[in-house]
């Protein structure tokens, strides 16, 4: 049994491929944990970043700089009364948030955080992801219908129309990325997510920059469609609070509502991960084929092997990032108001600085350093998209529904088709 568990560590495939269900379960739970933490972090970051864009401070009370705010929020949501309207369809009402959560989370099964860091690698990964992510709309329709109230119904209908409209543009953009995978030496492409990243490695380019500017256009189409798919500003019509109050989740409260919230952020992470995998080289660091002159870094516990200077420099980035964060936290500690009541907050922030620095130190250890790199770069790229999401929200007014549909059907769809045909033509000519 123990061999069964430890045996996987030496293999270099995903747990799904290795058929190791224990590790698959561990990966699944890790993904759940990671995503839940990421969502909490996102909530905090969104509130902070948005606040600073809007010349205010955001959460400041719960924990130093409001760091514990997401925890307080989730506790509150867990303990809130759960109201099911009288004339709602109870079963559907109950199932809808679960449906949305399942759809949002299940996408992560095929997302490769590293060459082996995925639950499983399917040869139809992309197809699976497109299929599952569009299941989310089902949950939203269920929520709107079950509520038996005008605003949720309108919100869910809008939502479904919007999601299916942008699904097409999204699919076409994905096809053009898949098309690029077939420019391998073997001449055959792949639908596997890991395969797509490997194809980018083999072709020495991120697909965003392949057949310039076609790859970028496809990424743009996908990036617009993914904002619409996740119902975020400026396409947040299903929950446009100035018109539909809260859209499809108007009648939801407490933990059920927070499931929708969780699903929304998870879906954001999921589609960003897909964009990163398809166009931005997945787990690959920037300039993956530039190694620099070989140097040897001495260390104490194993025989030092020479490695490229650029490789080495990039391998330090994760640690450096954590050191920078630790430095920010430390400066924050120094700038805390000198008030006896702020002592706990000050201590907390100081402890956070220490923890961050400690993580940074751990990341300097060569074996950890090597293994964590992939995940770090993947997460960093996703974080860029996440930041963009927040930025959109701070900047854009909301589209009107007809404009949104017009954009989807009359701009994004022809654009996706056009970029696909152009890629194909260029691909044949090359």
């Amino acid at each position: 049994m123990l061999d069964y568990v430890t045996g996987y560590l030496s293999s270099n495939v995903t747990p799904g491929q290795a058929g190791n269900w224990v590790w698959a379960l561990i990966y699944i739970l890790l993904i759940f944990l990671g995503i839940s933490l990421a969502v909490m972090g996102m909530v905090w970051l969104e509130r902070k970043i948005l606040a600073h864009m809007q010349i205010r401070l955001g959460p400041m009370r719960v924990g130093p700089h409001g760091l514990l705010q997401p925890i307080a929020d989730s506790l509150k949501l867990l303990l809130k009364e759960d109201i099911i309207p009288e004339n709602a369809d109870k079963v559907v009402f109950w199932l809808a948030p679960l449906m949305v959560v399942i759809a949002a989370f299940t996408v992560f099964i095929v997302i490769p955080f590293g060459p082996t860091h995925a639950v499983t690698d399917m040869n139809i990964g992309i197809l699976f992801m497109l299929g599952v992510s569009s299941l989310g709309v089902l949950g939203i329709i269920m929520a709107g219908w079950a509520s038996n109230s005008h605003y949720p119904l309108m919100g869910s209908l809008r939502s479904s129309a919007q999601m299916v409209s942008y699904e097409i543009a999204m699919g076409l953009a994905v096809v053009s990325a898949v098309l690029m995978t077939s420019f391998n030496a073997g001449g055959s492409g792949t639908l596997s997510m890991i395969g797509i990243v490997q194809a980018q490695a083999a072709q020495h380019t991120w697909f965003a920059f392949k057949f310039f500017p076609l790859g970028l256009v496809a990424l743009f189409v996908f990036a617009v469609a993914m904002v619409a798919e996740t119902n975020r500003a400026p396409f947040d019509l299903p929950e446009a609070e100035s018109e539909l109050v809260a859209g499809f989740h108007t009648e939801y409260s407490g933990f059920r509502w927070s499931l929708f919230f969780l699903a929304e952020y998870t879906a954001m992470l999921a589609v960003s991960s897909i964009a990163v995998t398809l166009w931005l080289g997945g787990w690959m660091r920037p300039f993956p084929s530039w190694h620099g002159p070989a140097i040897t870094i001495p260390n104490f516990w194993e025989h030092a092997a020479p490695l490229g200077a650029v490789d080495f420099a990039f391998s330090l980035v994760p640690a450096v990032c954590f050191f920078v964060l630790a430095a920010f936290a430390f400066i924050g500690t120094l700038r805390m108001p000198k008030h006896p009541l702020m002592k706990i907050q000050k201590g907390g922030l100081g402890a956070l600085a220490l923890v961050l620095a400690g993580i940074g130190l751990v990341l300097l250890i060569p074996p950890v350093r090597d293994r964590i790199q992939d995940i770090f770069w993947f997460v960093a790229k996703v974080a860029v998209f996440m930041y963009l999401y927040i930025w959109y929200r701070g900047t854009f007014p909301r589209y009107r529904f007809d404009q949104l549909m017009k954009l989807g059907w009359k701009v994004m769809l022809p654009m996706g088709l056009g970029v696909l045909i152009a890629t194909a033509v260029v691909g044949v000519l090359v």
Partner: protein
Amino acid sequence: MTDPTKSGGASHLDLAEREHTFLDANELVLNMGPQHPSTHGVLRVILKLDGEKVRGTECVIGYLHRGVEKIAENRTYTMFNPYVDRMDYVAAVSNGLGYCEAVEKLLNIEAPPRANYIRVILTELNRLASHMLWLGTHALDIGAITPLFYTFRDREEILKIYEKYCGARLTTHAFRIGGCLYETYDGFEADVKKFVSFVTPKIDEYEELLTTNRIWVERTRGVGVLSGPDCIDLGVTGPVLRASGVKWDLRKAKPYAAYSQFQFEIPTGQNGDTYDRYLVRVAEMRQSLRIVSQAVEGIPEGPIMAKVPKVLKPPVGEIYHSIEAPKGELGYFIVSDGSTQPYRIRVRPPSFVNLQALDKMVRGQLVADVVAVIGTLDIVLGEVDR
């Protein structure tokens, strides 16, 4: 225009009456308000929808009705003065100006020049504050959340000036019948000048965020169009009227206070759509700053209160006096029976009359436009319901 059933607002929507057409949905009756994030208070709009398209509206108002006109009949002229601040609470100073001037006319007295200058400064600052609040909330209705915080930051500076001047920020009760009660505080002029130079670039900042923003333009251009003749027919005044191309402003047409002594333009639009109304209001903010800086430069010395008897007993008669409030023509029709209490005070509220145009503006447009149009009409329910 002469068919009352067509132009005269909403007719009563019979909920039982449904139109059935082939492949067309039942009309959905959507109730918007009184508890809705974007009806600016307690406005209730019943929308008759075909999908997302508005077939008709009916406004239900009165949720904030406090019977101001009845209260007035039971108070003396002086006692009623603070009540008017509660009508359009985002432009309380303008309300007070209109009321004080109306009673002054009835008493046949005039406020001294210095008081008039102070009135102009505070009223124009109030117009600025009102427009800022409008811009923030209107942008929020359309989904841009950031301008709200910018405008509130700058509005705060105006409220600080009010607070220093009379101790109150929102319902200021700044003016008294016959002039002003308070002399300007030390450094008032400096504060106002500082504010003007502070806020001028900020208005550019708002414009930078919105004026050329594609989504903003798409959301507002051609939405809620109201032509000039329609405006006049519906009695719509203020920026909404000016955005339709009618160059009419009571400050120019029938100057009151000290407005005849200042140079300013009346900004107008051409299309009468939401975008033009936005541009007109932003331009008005700049003009207000212009007036404020002229007024603060030329503020004369002298008394701030005319000789007013302790007990106000206007002679028997009636008066109608109106001012250009931020939202439009704000009029007071006062009937005096020679006693200390007004026999009747009628407030002609701009918001109430402007709101009537909602139906004409949104018919055939989408639900999201209803929100945009309610925002662009710049109504305050305290004034609609009184």
